[in-house]
């Protein structure tokens, strides 16, 4: 099953965009933007390119559930996907994030 398929009206079932590409990692904070590990750059969830490779649910894999802001294993991922959650192979943590967080325990 391909994850994060856009529910757009139109003839095509799958709109091949970053959010359903296996190379894409959303920001954990602002998930409409993310990082393409193939091109090494920040793109938006509905950007697209010719290298698109569909993101599928596989076994023995962890996913970042962007809707729940947490990591889930493939055993749970199916249930998340069927509720319309957005799942990715990881999230994109920016390298300076340390400067934005606090001493908190």
């Amino acid at each position, binding site marked *: 099953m391909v994850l994060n398929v856009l529910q757009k009206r139109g003839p095509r079932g799958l709109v091949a965009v970053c959010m359903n590409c296996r190379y894409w990692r959303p920001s954990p*904070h602002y998930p409409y933007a993310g990082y393409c590990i193939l091109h090494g750059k920040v793109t938006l969830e509905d950007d697209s390119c010719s290298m698109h490779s569909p993101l599928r649910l596989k076994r023995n894999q962890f996913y970042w559930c962007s809707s729940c802001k947490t990591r889930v294993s493939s055993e749970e991922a199916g249930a998340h996907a069927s509720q319309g959650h957005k799942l990715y192979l990881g999230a994109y943590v920016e390298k300076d994030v340390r400067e*934005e967080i*606090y001493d908190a325990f």
Partner: protein
Amino acid sequence: MVDLKILIGGPQGGGIESAGQIALKAFVLKGYHVLGSREYQSNIMGAHSYYLVRVMRRRPRALTLPVDVLVALDAESVLTHFEEVRPGGFIVYDSGTANVKASTIAPMAKPLKERLSEFFGRRGSEPTVSEALKVAEERGVTPIGLPMKQLLRRVAEATERPLASISRTVNIMGLAAGLYLAGVELEYVKDAIVAQFSAKPKIIKPNVVAASMAVEHVSELHEGLPRLEDGPLKGKQLMVATGNELVAMAKLVGGLSVQTYYPITPSSDEALYLEEHRYFELNDVAKERLGLEKMGIVVLQTEDELSAINMAIGAALAGARAATSTSGPGFSLMNEAISYAVTVEAPILITLWMRAGPSTGIPTREGQQDLLHALFSGHGDTPKIVVASGDHLEAYWDTIKALEWAERFQTPVIHLVDKYLASSMISIEKREIEPRGYPIMRALKTDGDLRYKVTEDGISPWVPLGSSTMVITGLEHTEDGFATEDPVARDAMMEKRRRKMETIKREIPEEERVRVYGARDADVVLVSWGSTKNPILSAMEALEGEGVGTRFVQIRTFFPFPEDTVSRELSEAKTVIGVEQNLLGQAAFLVRAFTGYRVRHMILKLNGRPIFDDEIVYGVKRILETGEETVVVRGGS
């Protein structure tokens, strides 16, 4: 009168810190004094956090709600703060989040979700961002939607390169839009961005472009508040620093040479800041006189707080100016060593950053619950100095004084500072932290070599380890330091401890130990301590305007307790009200213990958020109207 309040909310890690700092910088560059505060959860990433900023011509004394502008970078921020904006104010939000339901926001606290469901249920709707905005609109607030995703795309197109940072573009757009609506010209936001990211030139340009685009978008929707005129400090350089940072600065300025610590909120940032500056450049006079360029402070992270305090004691006994820094749970572990430090007469400073307990409590939130703990720390009779600072600058100067007191009286000094001071920041003028009128000197008495000599004033000659043969022990001891259980020798040492306390009381002047503000003939006297000071001073002005005269007794040292002043001030008052952020009214408890006077009314805040000035106004009026014993105020998200 300029009094702007801005709240910037978003997920922890999502750029709230730099947005807050840029906001503060923009206002400082515009010539204003600022007060800012971080409120965040015990979480690394993703939980809701926010910055509260207040801007005035003189330094703001308290945070307060509602705000003029809420910048909500995500849905949770709208749903958390939509009722905290004043009529006529603005909510900047991401228009892409309009349909988000509270129930789908994973990090949002369950009790808040329930309250929202109930609130919107009564209105026959569901808690969603757009419903929340509707409520705000009904109250005269203007929601301003920013299509964040589309704007991000336009920023990338305009700079002709991929975005350098997601969080640090989204935050700037929200902030720039918010500041525009607050009346700040884009130019100042740009200058603040440059100042903020001067070490990261790559992200300056995209951020400046992002700010411009957001302002362009917003200015077509609304003109915002009247443009802010230049403030009185325009062109003058101000520092913006947190209480954590100011205490670290004071330790360096005050000649500290060893600091130990174990990581704990809200104290670690102090030690880390000191560590960043541990090898510092000397000023020209010192360079010339000492023939050195730099000097070091040993800042060491230890394996636990037991080690931290014992190491500081060891360093002090060898002659270093030594301190440690902790919070309630760590201080609990230090208790045995406090008693040891009293017995061996070790000059050490313990900076105790109070947070909301009991137990692990809410580690990142405000509380004033460790006063009794500090005062009665250590087994056996353990007199020591306990000083509580009322604001950022007091925390700075008290640190310098405490280092000196510790040496002069050869005793541990516990410096109480609250979490609110730790992570809130103020604008400071240069003269306010310039060492003046308070000479920085070693204060160890050196008139002999009998380390524990029984003296009139209870202070013995100081003999550091390594200077002669000696013994220092936590066992009761004779004048030469050797252990003894002899009853006469024991009495002599106990009497010496008593006389030392009397000396401390005599030598630390009463005006250092207590401060009294307000009209002498006021009917209401407020008694408080710690970071409630400035909110109280601010509330006093407001009460005065409403015809309620008040006086404020700020207790600064609890050991030695300023009995005379407190007793005099309270016994003459008609209504005495304690203001504290703990359950018992710990200072009021001590007032009774030391003076016999019972404080009959209390304004308490217990929810872990700093007290606001208007809450004190409310509490005082309520007590005067109803005669209630205790008013608990509950503001803040």
